[in-house]
């Protein structure tokens, strides 16, 4: 494993914060099933109180606030990660039923279920013998 794989990617596009912390892009998996799109984001350190999911028009933004990891009186022996907030945006198509989006957080992983709107679900058309 190269060193880079262990590091988080900083989100350089995030709006500047009042809190003096770095913002990282959470790593995500996005997959589609026939009924919904799923978005799973690794955001270690966040819980249901500190994570935010916002949908404005068709921009979905997930963000998470992580408490500063700095501890008094300790010196660093070695460090592979930095503590910071998370933010990442995605553009959704109209296919998503925006009222039915479900979000859960567990062990630092945000899981979003974005159900597809009824009108775009594939339909099988029955063919009648004439």
């Amino acid at each position, binding site marked *: 494993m190269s060193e880079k794989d262990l590091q988080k990617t900083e989100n350089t596009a995030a709006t500047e914060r009042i809190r003096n912390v770095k913002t990282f892009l959470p790593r995500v998996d996005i*997959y589609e099933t026939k009924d919904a799109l799923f978005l799973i984001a690794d955001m270690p350190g966040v819980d249901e109180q500190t994570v935010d999911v916002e949908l404005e028009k068709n921009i979905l933004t997930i963000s998470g606030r992580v408490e500063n*990891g700095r501890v008094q009186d300790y010196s660093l022996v070695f460090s592979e990660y930095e503590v910071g907030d998370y933010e990442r945006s995605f553009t959704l198509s109209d296919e998503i039923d925006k009222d039915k989006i479900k979000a859960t957080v567990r062990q630092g992983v945000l899981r979003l279920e974005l159900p597809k709107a009824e009108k775009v679900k594939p339909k099988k058309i029955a063919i009648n013998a004439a």
Partner: protein
Amino acid sequence: MKVRNLLPDIARKTREVDHPFYSLQREMNSLFDNFFRGFDLAPRGLAAGVFSPSIDVKENDKEYMIKAELPGVEEKDIDVTVTSDSVTIRGEKKEEKEDKDKNYYYMERSYGSFSRVIPLEGEIEAAKAEAKFKNGILDIKIPKNQSAKAKGTKVPIKAA
């Protein structure tokens, strides 16, 4: 397997995630990784794309504090072993397998078994180690051995 290492570091560091070329590159990498992972050719934990936690180690006079980012790992899947001079964190990040009909668009997260050994300087009191796991962050505290044996006893020197 290490295709991405051939590319210059600087280029990858900047906006890796949203640049179309790099997302294509990442796609290719994960394709290769997944292909090889199935055959178990690469030693686990060494291959890119296999999950390996990031670790921070801090210390003060009294104790070591180790933090590891383990998002999505369950408590029961983590195993922490402390010896007199090192800590081993072992576990597995399991991939969800309930749906078979998944069509992936992004695959940046990684899964798999991991094992990391953290050597610590000086003697530690393994029996007094404590570990907590919350919101995907493992927090281990291990007191340092405060006994004279570990610290060394100062011998006064007399003038002859």
